[in-house]
């Protein structure tokens, strides 16, 4: 049995292996408060990068769907959004664990934490909204429009607003922990491959789920045909 898109799936596995090995054993700077948790950079941060990338691709498919209402665009839009939401939840959980041991609490009402939580709620609403409609076209169109607006609200929420105020997160205001440091080339050597690797894992999951949807639809159609022939 051949696997579809074998080459990029293999590449995903290789990059993830590199991320895990490099992320766990390669040299990291010895920094106050952070200690070994600096390695979370290769696991927590790529969740958010991956999420933003996948939600962006989801918006791309939503726009394609509005231009030309084909089921395959809707399938891709919803599954990329789902994978993005999954990565968002994982990013949230991993971030809370990291925060507990570096900032002192799971949740400190940090602007970026709050904004990310609001952003995720916006996307939960997307998932709920989809469940409301019976009609496929209507579901596709309305959720595509919602998806575009959700992204437009989400990006300023997590990228812009937290930078306008003091936040514990890097690049926003003053705090201990990571904020004060610039990523150096040694950290980047694992960090960038890690972002690509985790995102590609998400894409693989999307690939499986979209194919599953296609099979499911074909199957339902077959059943309907069978029933109507009696």
């Amino acid at each position, binding site marked *: *049995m*051949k*696997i*579809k*898109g074998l080459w*990029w*799936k293999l590449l995903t*596995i290789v990059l*993830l*292996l590199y991320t*895990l*090995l490099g992320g*766990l*054993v390669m*040299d*990291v*700077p*010895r*920094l*106050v408060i952070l*200690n*070994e948790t600096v390695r979370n950079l290769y696991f927590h941060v790529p969740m958010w*990068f991956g999420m*933003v*990338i996948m939600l*962006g*691709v989801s918006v*791309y498919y939503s726009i394609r769907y509005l231009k030309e209402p084909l089921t395959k665009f809707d399938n891709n839009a919803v599954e990329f959004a789902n994978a993005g939401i999954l990565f968002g939840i994982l990013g949230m959980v991993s971030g809370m664990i990291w925060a507990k041991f570096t900032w002192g609490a799971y949740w400190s009402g940090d602007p970026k934490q709050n904004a990310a939580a609001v952003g995720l709620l916006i996307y939960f609403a997307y998932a709920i909204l989809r469940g409301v409609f019976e009609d496929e076209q209507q579901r596709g169109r309305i959720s595509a429009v919602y998806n575009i607006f959700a992204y437009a609200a989400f990006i300023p929420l997590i*990228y812009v607003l937290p*930078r306008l105020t003091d936040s514990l997160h*890097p*690049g926003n205001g003053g705090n201990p922990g990571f904020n*004060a*440091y*610039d*990523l*150096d080339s*040694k*950290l980047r050597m694992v960090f*960038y491959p890690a*972002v*690509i690797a985790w*995102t590609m894992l998400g*894409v*693989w999951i999307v690939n*499986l789920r979209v*194919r*599953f949807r*296609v*099979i499911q639809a*074909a*199957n339902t*159609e*077959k059943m309907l045909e069978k029933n109507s022939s009696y």
Partner: protein
Amino acid sequence: MYKFIKILLLSFALSFSFAETSMAQEKQKITEQDYANNEIEMADTMRSNGKIYIVVATIISLFAGIVVYLVMLDKKIGALEKNILDDSI
């Protein structure tokens, strides 16, 4: 597929440029001294007695399990695609 890769690359480029600009705020450089600063506690004991590699081995085996599972799932879906989609045409 190629269109898809193009989108992916584009979005990488976009998000990295985001990351670069955000990192351009006043920051301390991480220096060689930070790598040699022995006053900061790290997992040195784990490393000196080699046990960090046991953790690495554990995580790699977990990962191997997940990969095997994903590959099997991929194959199963591939087989279903063949069955259902091919004879419906």
